[in-house]
């Protein structure tokens, strides 16, 4: 698979790390953290997945590259990639300088 990184251009999947389904982390105030609602929301966030056979919006990290986290829309049946954006937002530039390349261990 090759992913068109918006900063680096199309690159082989080996340069990326996938984080799975893109989900919104629940937001709770400090005093709500131990409520059943918070617990339930986080159990859902951490453990449950739609896991569709079809379009899937997921987070990828271009670690051997610009170190951007990307929002990738991909078809899990065909591996076709329909859209790639910065996870941080439309206008977010990728980290400009890669001073050190971390080698995955």
């Amino acid at each position: 698979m090759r992913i068109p990184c918006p900063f680096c251009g199309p690159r082989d999947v080996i340069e990326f790390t996938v984080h799975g389904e893109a989900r919104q982390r629940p937001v709770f105030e400090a005093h709500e953290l131990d409520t059943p609602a918070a617990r339930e929301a986080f159990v859902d966030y951490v453990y449950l997945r739609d896991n569709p056979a079809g379009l899937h919006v997921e987070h990828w990290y271009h670690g051997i590259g610009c170190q951007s986290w990307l929002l990738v829309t991909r078809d899990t049946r065909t591996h076709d990639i329909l859209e790639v954006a910065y996870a941080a937002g439309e206008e977010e530039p990728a980290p400009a300088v890669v001073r050190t390349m971390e080698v995955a261990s």
Partner: protein
Amino acid sequence: MRFSGFSVLRNALTGQSGWTPHWRKASPKPAYDVIIIGGGGHGLATAYYLAKEFGVTNVAVLEKGWVGSGNVGRNTTIIRSNYMLPGNIPFYEFSMKLWEGLEQDFNYNAMVSQRGVLNLYHSDGQRDAYVRRGNAMRLHGVDAELLDRDGVRAIAPYLDFDNARFPIQGGLLHRRGGTARHDAVVWGYARGADARGVDIIENCEVTGFRMDDGRVVGVETTRGPIGAKTVGMAVAGNSSKVAALAGLRLPIESHVLQAFVSEGVKPLIDTVITFGAGHFYISQSDKGGLVFGGDLDPFPSYAQRGSLSTFADVTENAMALMPMIGRLRILRSWGGIMDMSMDGSPIIDETPVDGLYLNGGWCYGGFKATPASGFCFAHLLARGTPHPAAAAYRLDRFATGRVIDEKGVGPSPNLH
């Protein structure tokens, strides 16, 4: 007809005229006591044990394609019970015990071969982890031996002992582990279930659930609606898709696992060997092919094919471990869709929908689990309570924190 050397000889003399289909091509009846979705190893084993052990014979197994077309026909055929955590060991040991008597039990030669499974270690830390695991196995009555470097060399002298990036220090040997002929397991269970009255219905895809007052009362299929008092899903790889038909989301992600077989060669590798400095496992089939595999493709996928980077990684591991393999040729590769659960352990449990039960989340390890999975799921479907050996495989463990995470990688399904 009962299979035996005698029946083979008799048919040799009578133009093979005595054989009949190993199972009937059943058509769906209007309703069953139990419907099992998924005609793979787990689904068929469930049906077999339901009929044989629990006396439930009004059962249909619905298979969307041909029997055994899922992961049971796409794995590396390894059987073992070398687990570490108390939630897992009793279950896999129960499975191993069933493997040990399986062929006589279902009268089909599944070529269960206890050739041994050898896990290599390459560091002190890994050795300690294997010692912990080996001791845990022994505490549960499972065989385990710790080998030093010379002990490993005696079993597998062709490994790279002299020039390795991560030298082999020793290994954990589980002699009762080994391999089995995967397709024969499917056919043996299918034949055994069929003989006890189970309807095995191929080319019958479930497209929806029939509900009544919040309870499942049947399924919609490509061959029409079928009623059922109880419905069990055994569709690992596609659990999320089928569960979604009932409005359920699962702690599961689907991933491709590739496997490979080489051209056949004369006996070369006697046991199952796993590499500890990477992810790689290999054995040699009775036919002579080297059967091997490695890591998952890291991204969710329902395409039954793997990526080049993972393929390349598997071969690197192979060459690092046993450089004698270099000139042997890969004949065929294939990909299966794994139900990767959030803690790397399976789920055999009721679901929030009344009458609907789940057997899934088998990650890499579904094949070796087949007999116990079927037995325990049959127990759950027949009695409504978990079998003791599968008591830890509950869905609510994610909410309570009682997860069973052998590798300690947490809710990252692609790392399990």
